[in-house]
């Protein structure tokens, strides 16, 4: 498939949404894995070695900030795309992008094409 060389990990506590994004990424040709919370994600990161992670910002357990802090300085160093329901101000955007591995964010409910485009953009960016 077209994006086979790249790995996408879908982190979301909502099973339907997680599976939907997972399926969508598979259809787009990525190798995928899923995690249902921050800890699950951190546990798998070493074995799966994702290039891009879609990370829901509101999950039970570890907060986004805690996840990003733990991720900071870890190998591998995946690119994080945040999935959020809130809008960010310029200042907040700046802060978010300064947080370790975050490269982008998408506001829910997102458009099918939008998500695909953003993931593709970062998966193949240097």
């Amino acid at each position, binding site marked *: 498939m077209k994006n086979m060389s790249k790995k996408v990990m879908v982190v979301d506590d*909502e099973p*339907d*949404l997680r599976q*939907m*994004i997972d*399926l*969508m990424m598979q*259809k787009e040709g990525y190798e995928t894995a899923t995690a249902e919370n921050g800890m699950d994600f951190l546990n798998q990161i070493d074995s799966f070695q994702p290039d891009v992670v879609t990370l829901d910002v*509101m999950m039970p357990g570890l907060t986004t900030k805690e996840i990003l802090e733990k991720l900071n300085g870890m190998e591998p160093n995946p690119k994080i795309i945040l999935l959020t*329901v*809130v*809008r*960010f*101000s*310029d200042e907040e955007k700046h802060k978010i992008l300064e947080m370790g591995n975050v490269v982008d964010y998408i506001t*829910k*409910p*997102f*458009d*099918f*094409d939008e*998500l695909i485009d953003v993931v593709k953009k970062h998966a193949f960016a240097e």
Partner: protein
Amino acid sequence: MSSCYITGDWKESKMNIVEELRLEEKNGFPNLKKKRNPPSKKSTSPNQIDSSKKNKQLEITSKRLEYLTKDMEKTLTELDQIFNNGSNAMIVLNNNFRILRINDTFANIFNVDKSRSLGKRCDEVIKLNFCSEKCSEQKCSIRNALSEKGTVEFEEQIDHDDGSYSLYRITASKYYGFDQKVQGVILSYLDVTQIRKDQERLQKMNDELLKAREETEDYVALLEQKTAALELTNEKLYESEEKIRKQNIKLQKLDELKSNFLNVTSHELRTPMSSIKGYVQMMTNKMLGEVSDEQQKALQVIMRNTNRLDNLIQDILDISRLESGTMKFIAEQTNIGEMIKEIEETMSSASNEKNISLRVQCSDELPTLVIDKDRIKQVIMNLINNSVKFSQENTIITIYAFSKGNETIIQVKDQGRGIPKEKQRHVFETFYQVDSGMDRTFGGAGLGLAISRGIVMAHGGNIWVDSSGIKGEGTTFSISLPNEPVENIEERFKQVDVFKLESDNFDNDLKNKEYDEKE
């Protein structure tokens, strides 16, 4: 000796004293001789003196007597002066209460004829309260008092004819003769009227001072009471403040809770929408296999209704956030012309369905405003959507944008059926529908305009509607935004109660006219 004292006054009796002294000198007056002429001691024996010497001696004695007499007279005159001119009124009585002497001061004060009074019984001349009414030689109050002491003091008030009075402190004292026997009584009157008056005045002043002090003490007590009451009030106030503070904290917590609730609700409601929309989009794009035409139509219906539901959720969340003051505004520099271009691009497809032409008439010089661009876009797109919804096919919707004064005005004008005048006031109310009940031909929850108004108000602007209400003449919705850049816009948004202004809702007839002219 005593008898001669009562026969005349002091001066007259002086000569008697002199006579007496001469007699005593003849009979030998050893004390006086010794005192007055000590050298005469040598000539004490008469046997040694011859007659011529005796004569000489007599002559010397006579001269000495003369000298003594003069000396005596001088002394007596001085005593007389002292007795008569002292400030004390004095009266001297013998043991039989006959008046021996009265000084001038006494005579003047009590208006007594001195010469007539001498020798009279004292009660004929002076009346004293101290004395009993029926006094007698045996029953004299003064004598009784003096039997135990040398001196008696008492006070007497003497009323005058003119109504005034005088107060005397009278000192009664025994006096003694040469033989050391009591010769009588001296009454000395000291006028203490002024002293008494001064005393009374002092007493009065003292009383007044005491009274003032008491009053002051009362006042102080009252002050203390009031202070205590104030302290109590203060405590109560403090308690109330404490209560208010606690309630405030509680309210803040509630506010946070509400805000959190809205965030969670937002997340919970929108997450399922993402799944639905994702799958529908995948199916529509045939990523999950082939789709028949009928299935494709069904998917479109699902998608349309999902979007509708999503919009409704968004609206309800927006209204809640506006009402609770928790709507987040993100202020950024926004070029109004560019923003309207973006809106035009987005909305062109919406107007295509009814073949409605969307036109834009923007002034060349539109300012850059510090606003929440997404929110203002949301407002204008909502106005355009409304116009599309209520417009006939093949009509025109026009967007105007221009600056007027220190405001920027953006208008959306359609050629639809218009809004009756009586309903124009209510279109911005929450859940208000121009068509209600059975007549409803158009969907919508009636939240869009209320949200639009809230957003515009939060920006310090205004929103209003103008329509003749005649079908085909259409409706114009206008919003105004202040041109001045707003500092600390987030804080300002929080301070605006966007739903409080129902009363001044749309008294905008004047404003409408103003902008109609521009149109």
